[in-house]
């Protein structure tokens, strides 16, 4: 199966590890990810208020590019997945947003939310299958106690995201199990790390992260995994260092026996934040 792939700005720069290992593992599992051309940053925050149109257009362009290629649109970053899914829902259900976006973009064929947005984890579960994945594991992560950190963006609002049970999700736990490790269920796995306010209200984020990590540890987790670069940043910055935090794709890479992942900070993540702000370097 071939997917149109939307990496997003952070996977091209600070979260290169999430992207690189994700592509390598997809290839190993026989899944083609074809990056859409000339994509633009999705904006990282879904514009909730209904009269926002311009801030949704980059997402619409990406959705439309996948539609034109006749494929599903695959995401990896939780925030991109959230924004693209919700904007797509608007295009499907809100005639006002749909009319204005189409008027603005003037595509040859108007867009009305036809594209299916699929997260990497859903691809693993529904396309590859966790049972098949388990058989592809060459290096089972036996004995490792791993907590899934879902955060907010993949799950809520569940009416639109339809990702998993918003209060008792299991997709990442099933993923961890398929890799041969032991998933640790803890209460705060779907509570917010304070990602969006980290630059303006650092203390608020710190408190959230410390509560989450303490809760995970009390339930027996020895490491956490996430699909969100902003969660990763917060968890590493405000955690106590004793809890290892990895991307889902790093864990997958290791379990598939494709190699060992490098320590944080020494890997591919060499881009500077300025890349995103000036919009340079987004195309690979």
């Amino acid at each position: 199966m071939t997917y149109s792939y939307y990496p997003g700005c952070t996977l091209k720069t600070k979260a290169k590890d999430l992207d690189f290992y994700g592509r390598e593992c997809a290839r190993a599992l026989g899944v083609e990810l074809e990056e859409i051309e000339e994509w633009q940053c999705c904006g990282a925050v879904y514009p909730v208020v209904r009269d926002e149109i311009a801030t949704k257009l980059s997402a619409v362009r990406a959705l439309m590019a996948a539609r034109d290629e006749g494929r599903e649109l695959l995401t990896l970053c939780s925030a991109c997945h959230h924004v693209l899914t919700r904007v797509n829902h608007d295009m499907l259900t809100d005639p006002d947003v749909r009319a204005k976006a189409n008027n603005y973009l003037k595509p040859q064929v108007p867009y009305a939310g036809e594209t299916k947005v699929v997260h990497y984890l859903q691809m693993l579960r529904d396309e590859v299958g966790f049972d098949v994945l388990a058989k592809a594991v060459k290096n089972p992560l036996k004995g490792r106690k791993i907590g899934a950190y879902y955060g907010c963006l993949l799950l809520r609002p569940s009416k639109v995201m339809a990702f998993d049970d918003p209060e008792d999700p299991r997709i990442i736990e099933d993923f961890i199990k398929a890799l041969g490790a032991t998933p640790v269920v803890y209460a705060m796995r779907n509570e917010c790390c304070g990602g969006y306010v980290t630059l303006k209200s650092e203390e608020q984020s710190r408190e959230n992260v410390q509560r989450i990590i303490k809760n995970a540890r009390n339930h027996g987790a020895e490491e956490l995994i996430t699909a969100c670069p902003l969660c990763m940043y917060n968890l590493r910055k405000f955690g106590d260092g004793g809890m290892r935090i990895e991307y889902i794709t790093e864990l997958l890479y290791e379990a598939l026996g494709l190699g060992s992942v490098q320590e944080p900070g020494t890997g591919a993540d060499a881009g500077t934040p300025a890349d995103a702000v000036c919009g340079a370097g987004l195309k690979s």
Partner: protein
Amino acid sequence: MRLPEAEIAAVVKQISGSDVKKCMKCGKCSATCPAYGEMRFHPHQFVTMVARGRVDELLKDETVARCLSCFACVERCPRGVEPANVVAAIRVIAEREQGGSNFVPDEVPGLIEADGEIPQQALVSAFRRYRK
């Protein structure tokens, strides 16, 4: 010229898409809110005050920016009221006023210098959340 309070309240209702009259004042949204201690007004108060047309106080309060947009209140409201959308509408209306931006590009170099690990996502979302 600034709109009268009642008219701004009508705009809030419209752009939030939230049916504030459906609120049964159970307080579940505020009980679950991870920013409860940071915000002067809590999600259930946003809903009630907007329903009564009292938005001026909300618009003056800067702690509205502390809402994490985590959508926990939306998910856990038993009446489908979507309090986070009301909070967002207030925040956006305040930011759209002249001088309402709370994040300027000049802040970025200093932030990056202080912490080279800041992901793009944090900067992009700050521009989205704190500016019109």
